[in-house]
């Protein structure tokens, strides 16, 4: 309904953004490709609340009583597991989709905060390795820039089977972002669209994956933790198979997870939300008696210490942030609002990461734009943000009486909606009812 004219009623089936998309499609003949993650309203961690301690439980004193946040990842088979000060890690984002300065900022920020960062498609840059104390090297279907020297320089290896924004899909780095350096790292001509394959070129299925993991361990002397990352779909089975294949760590990325360039129809309509994905992954680990033996990292729409605390309470060992980390660096900053508007967007709405003309200088290969991000300042902002999330996480854990953030548990939470109760497997607030599990 228009606020100026109450007789104008907007259609629920054809609201303005749907009409605009039909008009855009009719004009261009091509689907919408964009970055960012799912924008639709779905059940999230916001639909859960913690039951702070009171008569039946006692809380811990903020800033005084210890509530530790250290996490060890990858101690199942790897000789050198990862030790982090906080369970908030940085997700894989490529050099190519991001500028070299942005990658350096992520490394600096993660290092100050005592956590890990992750490469992406296109290989490892010296800037990133040099500025990241703990660097996870992604092993992706395209194998752009993949080489055994970098593999050995990594602290962990993440085999990427899928991504929450597009489970079952590959990537596309459009020609405008293929600078000479990006092209050289990927062994492709400059300026062409680069397709990142949707599945690995040298195996199909979990039995092959087991052998692939063996090969990677043999090449790296069984030192590096091997993560397996999946986009959240058939989470219970995918996690089970990843563990069976020999993963040290499983990463589950929900549908809110971001991307640099994917079809809008993929981002919005494939995959399941992070909320049920955590529960399903934990159930799979528990059924195999591998919970806390194979660690679980959850990503996709993590924004606050509350999100982190809820993911951990459902049983995750750590989380990853991607989009939120870019915002911390300066993405969507009001400082660039006029420039966002000049390219048909606005601060807070910018999602054309594929276009390469990011006013904030983050999702670009344009040297002039990329200069706008000072990697030292960017790193500091990211570290501040991670520190805030960690403090918020500790605040909530202490309120629930937990001396380690991993002691948070599903029993500490209730759901505000039936959907969230069913998905997370915690009772609807004020009841003992978990939909699908009986109760009062």
């Amino acid at each position, binding site marked *: 309904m228009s606020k100026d004219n109450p007789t104008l009623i907007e259609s629920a089936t054809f609201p303005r953004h749907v009409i605009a998309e039909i008009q855009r499609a009719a004009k*261009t*003949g*091509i689907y919408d490709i964009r970055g960012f993650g799912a924008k639709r309203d779905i059940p999230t961690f916001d639909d859960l609340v913690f039951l702070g301690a009171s008569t039946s439980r006692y809380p811990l004193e903020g800033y005084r009583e210890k509530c530790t946040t250290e996490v060890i990842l990858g101690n199942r088979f790897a000789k050198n597991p990862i030790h982090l000060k906080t369970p908030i890690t940085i997700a894989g984002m490529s050099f190519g989709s991001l500028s070299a300065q942005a990658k350096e900022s992520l490394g600096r920020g993660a290092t100050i905060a005592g956590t890990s960062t992750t490469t992406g498609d296109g290989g490892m840059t010296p800037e990133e390795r040099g500025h990241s104390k703990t660097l996870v090297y992604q092993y992706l279907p*395209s*194998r752009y820039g*993949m*080489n*055994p020297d970098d*593999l050995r320089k990594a602290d962990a290896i993440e085999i990427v089977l899928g991504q929450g924004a597009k489970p079952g899909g590959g990537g*596309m780095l*459009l*020609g405008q972002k293929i600078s000479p350096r990006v092209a050289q790292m*990927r*062994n*492709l*001509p400059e*300026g*062409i*669209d680069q*397709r990142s*394959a949707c599945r690995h*070129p*040298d*195996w199909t299925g979990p039995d*092959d994956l087991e*052998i*692939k993991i*063996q*090969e990677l361990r*043999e*090449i*790296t*002397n*069984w030192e590096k933790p091997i993560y397996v990352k999946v986009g959240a779909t058939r989470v219970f089975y995918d996690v089970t198979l990843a563990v069976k294949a020999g993963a040290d760590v499983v990463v589950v990325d929900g549908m809110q997870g971001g991307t640099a360039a994917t079809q809008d129809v993929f981002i919005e309509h494939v995959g399941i939300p992070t909320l049920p994905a955590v529960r399903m992954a934990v159930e799979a680990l528990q059924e195999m008696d591998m919970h806390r033996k194979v660690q679980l990292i959850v990503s996709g729409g993590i924004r606050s210490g509350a999100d982190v605390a809820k993911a951990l309470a459902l049983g995750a060992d750590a989380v990853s942030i991607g989009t939120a980390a870019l915002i911390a660096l300066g993405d969507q900053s009001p400082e660039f609002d006029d420039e966002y508007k000049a390219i048909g967007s606005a601060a807070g709405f910018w999602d054309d990461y594929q276009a390469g003309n990011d006013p904030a200088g983050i999702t670009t290969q344009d040297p002039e734009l990329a200069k706008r991000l000072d990697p030292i300042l960017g790193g500091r902002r990211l570290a501040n943000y991670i520190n805030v999330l960690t403090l918020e996480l500790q605040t909530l854990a202490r309120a629930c009486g937990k001396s380690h953030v991993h002691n948070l548990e599903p029993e500490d939470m209730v759901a505000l909606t039936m959907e969230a109760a069913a998905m997370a497997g915690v009772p609807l607030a004020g009841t003992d009812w978990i939909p699908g599990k009986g109760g009062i």
Partner: protein
Amino acid sequence: MTEINLDKSSVRDLNVELQGGSSGDKFSVNNTVGKHALSVGLTTAVNVEINGHVGYYCAGMNQQANIVINGNAGPGLAENMMSGEVRITGNASQYAAATAHGGLLVIEGDSSSRCGISMKGVNIVVGGSIGHMSAFMAQSGCLVVCGDAGDALGDSIYEAKIYVRGNVKSLGTDCIEKEMRDEHKAELKELLMQSKMNHGVEEFRRYGSARKLYNFDIDQVDDY
């Protein structure tokens, strides 16, 4: 010559020993019985002779080493090889030299489907024939086939070059036959010589990218 018998040594023992070898060292590996991940991640110019059939990913990510396999290989032979030479006297299964960046892979027998998938600079010479979807999304390097090629050869190929002596069942999207110029004849002659294949360069035809799919064009959508 150091002999490693996989009846007694584990795959871990084998790779530790080979990875620790010095340039020029010679190793022979026996009783392989199709084991996986043999002789992977080597970094020096050692000479390794493997007697018997091997499983997945033999010679994976090879750097510098000269590896000869007297037998057949499972999937992913010499996957992501960077340099050095791998030669197999028998046949290779799927995805031989997948994503390999450099070096030379010689397959004296046949190679199954997706040979040279996403190859990134490696040279591959196959004495026999290759299966379907070979050189899919091949980026750079040369694939030389002395026998025939299966369906959809070079589908979505980038800048890799394919030379085939026999018949090509069908070409994949955006792959076309190209003129054999002097520089190609010289390149092919050199590869045939290195791989010890006795064929004349004039018997081969060259295939490569039409470069029509390099930038997404809605009018080409039916080609995908």
